[in-house]
């Protein structure tokens, strides 16, 4: 069984079988409060899947992009859950889960032929008047979304112009489907591939500037 954890937008946890059958998916859409809900969500996801921690073979971690503070909670949780069981962590870019969901949905509704060649961008709120976006087109032979460009930040006002120029459809996402994140992980495991870096996808440096000389206080 594969446990998927993502806190890049809200908090979401899911359990899927190695072949991709979804056993459970629970979430909190609260864009804050990740630390509050993460433990309960893991317990609920396991319970609804009728499994115990001992049944989990891999933990899939959503690596972002996403607002830093929340994003870290899920990655930390994925790492320590795996540590407690002595099992591997499989990092997955959070936007991959949204891309896979869209492509699978199109396949189920018979529209896949129309979108298989479509270039589209998964777009999420990155706060500070920016979006995070990743450009995709179709699925590869392993059933994983093909990333045409890696996740990047863009000022909100610039996004549409850039996408229109390049003929890319815009697909906004408000939530990350943890089950599809886990399915991406499951497919990567089956294919023996590493599909994301093990480091959090912050996309931003901590905004701090080294101090100049101390301010004068006057006399």
């Amino acid at each position, binding site marked *: 069984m594969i446990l998927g954890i993502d806190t890049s937008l809200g908090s979401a946890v899911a359990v899927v079988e190695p072949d991709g059958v979804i056993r459970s998916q629970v979430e909190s859409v609260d864009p804050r409060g990740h630390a509050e809900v993460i433990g309960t969500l*893991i317990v609920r996801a*396991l319970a609804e899947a009728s499994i115990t921690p001992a049944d989990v073979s891999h933990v899939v971690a959503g690596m972002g992009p996403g607002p*830093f503070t929340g994003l870290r*909670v899920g990655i930390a949780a994925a790492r320590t859950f795996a540590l*407690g069981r002595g099992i591997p962590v499989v990092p997955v870019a959070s936007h991959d889960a949204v891309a896979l969901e869209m492509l699978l949905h199109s396949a189920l509704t018979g529209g896949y032929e129309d979108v298989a060649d479509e270039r589209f961008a998964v777009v999420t709120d990155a706060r500070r008047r920016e979006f995070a976006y990743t450009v995709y087109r179709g699925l590869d032979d392993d059933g994983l979304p093909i990333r045409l460009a890696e996740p990047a930040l863009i000022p909100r006002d610039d996004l549409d112009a850039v996408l229109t120029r390049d003929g890319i459809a815009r697909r906004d996402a408000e939530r990350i489907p943890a089950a599809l994140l886990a399915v991406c992980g499951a497919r990567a495991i089956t294919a023996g591939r590493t599909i994301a870096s093990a480091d*959090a996808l912050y996309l931003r440096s901590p905004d701090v500037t080294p101090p100049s000389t101390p301010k004068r206080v006057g006399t």
Partner: protein
Amino acid sequence: MNRSEPLVLGIETSCDETGIGIVRGRTLLSNTIASSMDEHARYGGVVPEVAARAHLEALEPAIHAALAESGVALSDIDAVAVTSGPGLAGALMVGVGAAKALAVSLGKPLYAVNHLVGHIAADILDSNAPPLEYPTVALLVSGGHTSLLLVRDLTSDVELLGETMDDAAGEAFDKVARLLGLPYPGGPQIDRVAASGDPDAIAFPRGLSRASDMAGHRYDFSFSGLKTAVARWVEQRAARQEQEPDVDWSLPVADVAASFREAVVDVLVTKALAACRDYDVPRLLLGGGVIANRRLRDVALERGAAAGVTVRIPPLSLCTDNGAMIAALASELIMSGRPASTLEFGADSTLPVTEIQVAESA
């Protein structure tokens, strides 16, 4: 769960130290600390986002190191403990998320505890000291906090007598070190240059120590006025040099450092001993990273002895922020029969000291 000598793994991420501690009952098995201090040096103080990122990277290796050092397997652990607050919110959240998932994964109870009370619990792990006696006054001084507590019982009765109204004492050391052109962290640097200085050379102010402060702020601290006074003194000296280029008005760094340090130490010790006297408690416990300051330890011991107050100072490795103190506090809670925390708690950056354990199960 073994309640007579529980094996507890503690996780502490409230500031810039990623601390993993393992204790068995009151025995310290590992006190593993990964610090991001070097990454903050160029900013002259702890940068919360830098600290939080460092926690995420350091946690897993630190847990491995602590297990290796203690020769313990995760499956042997009786409980997981974590700091819920107070501290930097984003930094605390990393530890809270990690601790919850670890506890669920292991199927073990989780104890969410108070960082400041953890500093007191650190004393219990000092195998060379006689058992901690109650009540005791505790003075906790670090870069993040300056608090004076009355501890009647570690697991059930801790009262905040006073705290800093502005900067923590450790922050004041950092800021004054910068004024004097000394690197971060400022405490050891000030201590080093002050060694050859005259602590009475300059009469810097003692914050919240006037008779009029005694009603409302008897046990509170303030260090921002002191920092401003040092800055002003340094500026006036430079201005003087400009006016009189032929006279040597260069900064007597050693005297400024020694006089500043004396002002900080004097206020800390005076107020701590006043609390001992007012509450008729002949015991004072010191904790927090600033306890590394030699002068603070010496003055506390000397003036404590004169006042008939026994001063306890745990080893420095237990005074700075660490996971062992968090594990030790949880161990005490377990041994006193307290139920575990539920999973429904978060990081509380301003957690009051009266909340020794957070989200206790019904």
